[in-house]
């Protein structure tokens, strides 16, 4: 015969001892901040990697009057060759180590780069130099005498090194990354503190009940587990809500930042990506980090409560 059990397992009534609202809402707020910080950290790390591995490897070479035939100087005086100035530079660049990518920007690509400064007139009115983008292979460095070699062969050729800028920018990005890590640690610390205080309050209101359960032979694991699953569940819900709420501003920011994330000159564009294509552009590690946030919040809640309850129970024999 079934008994009219009340459906309450042990009288702890944790829904009253640890109310939904306070912990849930506070963890949601913490997770919202964590999601924003995590995205900032991901962005800073991406830029740092790009600047460290990309910009330092990138040379931009400008060749004035690119389509004019090269006038070579020799012992017999100046002679005009069949090769254009740009072709000569490209031929010199072909001797760089294998794996080096050399790309001369097309007229359309140049015009697109200049449009923000010169407008549509930039497409036709001015004589434009050839711009050659040289991307060295991973770990490769440009020969020290490259600039001198090119200037000797094709006078007026300008080589722009990005190494110095990339070092400074990388230092800046690494500082941002450290700040983001500090902010994340602070958010985690506050979440731990909130959980600890909430647990203490719950334990205080249930002291008598816990003493009865203890007297009936409830183990520390049982009591700590009951509290921990409650706070873990609330923290998971709060974490999920905070992360979902953070997605709206994050998508907006990411869309605005997308044009700056282009890896090459020819890929750069002032146009913002379409909303429909935006999810495909989001970095996988950032999405993984955001997806992990509710679980991390749940773990912080669970582990903090386990610790707090077990320490509290130590006062009892």
């Amino acid at each position: 015969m079934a008994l009219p059990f009340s459906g309450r397992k042990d009288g702890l009534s944790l829904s009253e001892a640890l109310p939904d609202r306070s912990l849930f809402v506070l963890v949601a707020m913490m997770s919202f901040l964590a999601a924003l910080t995590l995205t900032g950290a991901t962005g800073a790390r991406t830029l740092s990697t790009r600047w460290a591995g990309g910009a330092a490897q990138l040379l931009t070479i400008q060749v004035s009057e690119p389509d004019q035939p090269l006038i070579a100087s020799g012992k017999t005086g100046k002679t005009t060759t069949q090769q254009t100035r740009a072709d000569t530079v490209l031929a010199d660049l072909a001797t760089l180590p294998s794996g080096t990518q050399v790309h001369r920007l097309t007229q359309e690509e140049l015009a697109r780069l200049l449009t923000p400064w010169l407008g549509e007139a930039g497409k036709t009115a001015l004589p434009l130099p050839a711009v050659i983008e040289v991307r060295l292979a991973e770990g490769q460095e440009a020969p020290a005498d490259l600039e001198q070699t090119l200037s000797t062969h094709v006078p007026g050729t300008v080589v722009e090194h990005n190494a110095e800028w990339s070092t400074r920018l990388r230092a800046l990005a690494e500082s941002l990354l450290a700040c983001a890590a500090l902010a994340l640690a602070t958010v985690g610390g506050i979440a731990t503190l909130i959980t600890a205080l909430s647990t203490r309050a719950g334990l205080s209101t249930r002291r008598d009940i816990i003493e009865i359960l203890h007297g009936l032979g409830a183990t520390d694991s049982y009591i700590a587990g009951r509290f921990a699953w409650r706070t873990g569940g609330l923290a998971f819900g709060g974490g999920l809500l905070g992360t979902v709420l953070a997605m709206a501003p994050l998508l907006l920011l990411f869309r605005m930042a997308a044009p700056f994330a282009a890896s090459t000159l020819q890929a750069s564009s002032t146009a913002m990506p379409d909303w429909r294509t935006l999810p495909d552009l989001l970095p996988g590690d950032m999405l993984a980090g955001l997806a992990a946030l509710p679980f991390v919040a749940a773990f912080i809640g669970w582990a903090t409560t386990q610790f707090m309850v077990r320490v509290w129970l130590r006062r009892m024999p």
Partner: protein
Amino acid sequence: MIRLKAVSWRRERREGAPVLSNLSFDVPQGGFRWLLGPSGAGKTSLLSLLHLENLPTDGTLCLLDKDVTAQTPRAVLVRLRQRIGMVHQDFRLMPDLSVADNVALPLRLQHRPEDEITDEVHAILKWVGLGECIGVRASRLSGGEQQRTAIARAIVHRPGLILADEPTNALEEPQAHKLLDLFGELSSMGTTVIVATHNEALVRRLPRPALVLERGRLVQDGA
């Protein structure tokens, strides 16, 4: 089996004489002892000590064949406590739980199957005369009903040791006599029973050895 050798207990951070002082006695497995003495003699403190709510500050305590000291691991204390049924003077029921859930607690904490719990709880509640109140919240019970619920909870898991602090205070005479008969029966089946009481009529009805306390000291061991 219970064995105390020169056991004393003092409240933490309290100066002066200990609450229990130099107690030594044995109670064999299946033994029954009345615990007698005036108010403030230390009866409840001794029962708390035997229930492991407090641990001896001096002396040695052997309970259910296990030596208990301040260094005994908590897990061992918990397992021992699961083998003890305690009836407190103030009942200590869960006010928000039904009578059935209150009585089921010791079985649930031991992870017994739900079918078994249902059978055991139903049988014990019928026996203590609470078959009609089975689904009522503990906070809505009368004093006598609460006491019977507390008694049912203390014996439902067939403990090796039953400790009862004034268990018949709120009971009418027929119920009190019925409870005494049950304690006597459990004792004869091998359960050790210690009952603290002021009720001399009850002691006369079940003449068994008595431990008499005065000011925290054992003045008579009727074993």
